[in-house]
């Protein structure tokens, strides 16, 4: 049988022969690639359950490996190393070390939901990508990704005021990720935005930045939600 996704096997375990004779039969040609067998000891039986406790990872056990998610995936089309089906497979087998080889790209999922839309088993792969990324951050295997910083800045603003304001989220994000506050392309964007903006709106946006708009009836909503999230995390991860 042809070997699909050969790229997923470590190159040193692939044995390519010019010609090959097995038990006296010449199998040269399409049968000339072999993989060195190995015994797995590096799996973690509990891993699937750990990922299920993260929001989004609940249905990972339902996967039947049809490959539709990867086939439809926006990020896979950018980079074939980004492979949701494969990571879900490894999660189910508890092969953490294999997943960690791709630790730096898993967070790049753009949440386009093509995978979740197409999955015949309601695995919600988009959620699994987020669950894996968060697990790696919690384990301090990876640093907090820029997108996690962004999520946190965003949530903090809602928690305090009930709303967000574009510019202050953006500035908060740049500060937190130690990026320069003025990036050339954003400057050009800003200039073009200001070019025809009515003065009244400019003033309004400026004021919004200075005093983030607030939901008047927000009351203790932020506190209640924060307490709920903390309690749920405690239940899930101890």
């Amino acid at each position, binding site marked *: 049988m042809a070997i699909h996704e050969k790229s997923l096997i470590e190159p040193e375990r692939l044995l390519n022969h010019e010609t090959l004779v097995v038990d006296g039969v010449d199998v040269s040609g399409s049968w000339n690639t072999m993989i060195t067998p190995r015994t797995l000891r590096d799996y973690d039986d509990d891993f699937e359950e750990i990922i299920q406790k993260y929001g989004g990872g609940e249905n990972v056990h339902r996967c039947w490996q049809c490959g539709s998610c990867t086939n439809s995936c926006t990020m896979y089309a950018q980079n074939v190393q980004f492979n949701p089906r494969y990571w879900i497979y490894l999660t189910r087998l508890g092969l953490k070390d294999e997943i960690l080889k791709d630790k730096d790209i898993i967070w790049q999922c753009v949440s386009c939901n093509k995978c979740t839309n197409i999955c015949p088993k309601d695995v919600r792969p988009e959620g699994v990508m987020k669950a894996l990324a968060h697990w790696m951050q919690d384990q301090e295997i990876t640093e907090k990704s820029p997108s996690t910083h962004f999520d946190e800045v965003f949530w903090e603003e809602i928690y305090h005021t009930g709303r967000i304001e574009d510019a202050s989220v953006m500035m908060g994000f740049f500060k937190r990720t130690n990026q320069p506050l003025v990036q050339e392309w954003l400057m050009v964007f800003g200039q073009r935005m200001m070019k025809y903006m009515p003065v009244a709106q400019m003033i309004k946006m400026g004021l919004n930045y200075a005093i983030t708009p607030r939901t008047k009836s927000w009351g203790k909503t932020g506190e209640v*939600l924060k307490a709920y999230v903390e309690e749920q995390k405690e239940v899930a991860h101890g």
Partner: protein
Amino acid sequence: MGKVAYYPGCALEGSGGPYDKSTRVLVKALGLDMETISDYNCCGAMEVKNIHPMLQTYLSSRVMALASQEMGYDAVMAPCNGCYHNLKKAEYETATSEKAMQTVQDLARKADDPVYQGDVRTLHLLEWLMEDLGIEGIKQKMKKSLNGIKIANYYGCMYTRPRQIFPEKDQGEGSESSYKPHFMDDLLGAAGAVNIDFPLKTACCGGAHTLSDSDTSTQLVLNIIQAAEDAGAEVIATECPTCHSGLEMHQIRAETEFGIKSSVKVIYFTQLLGLALGLSPRKLGVHENISDSIGLLKEKGIV
């Protein structure tokens, strides 16, 4: 349907200003009626579900509860795909899971917020226009034609995916399709535009990583822009402030950082429809778009 509660969400108050402006004047010119939910909260956009999924469900249900409990509406209209998606998702979660509904209601009582009863329906602006007026209704109001301007209608991810949360879609004739949405095509076609066959209608613009992974977003936006140009489009029509700003921002980034120029203009569908109703570009905030389309619109005899 009559009157709906209007949920602008945070984007339309900020960078999506021209979308808010054109939505308001368009709705008025079409003789429809809506009331703004004045004290709304953020729906959580794409971000808070990653902190915890219940946050997003709760924030969206709070908006629906404000509309029904405090204002007496049974329909909320959201022009932003992100808001629309999140409210729909909360509707779906609370309708299909007793536990989710219970949690939402418990949290509301604890926070002294209005309690969501599962009695509100969310519509995207596109759906509202199609349901209340339809193509014929729009045609009757037209004062001008869009003069065959070639449009690639771009719907983005959240208006169609995942299809489970949009029970009204894919119901056959007359309904919206989640695979090949067509409401914007229908409306702008009725206004005299030529809809071009655009294969990336529901492709992702990378909005979730606009700033956190700009290279990916720029690439995804370039795919959309180039596909539209290859198909002969002069304009990409948008129906979401996040998609719209994403396309504009990364069109600029592609130009300033990679020297890749493109000439296609990005315009909100509300602005295009408004022009066909005879409203002025200024009233519709066309000048406030970053993508400068006035030259093209003049050339086409639309303004």
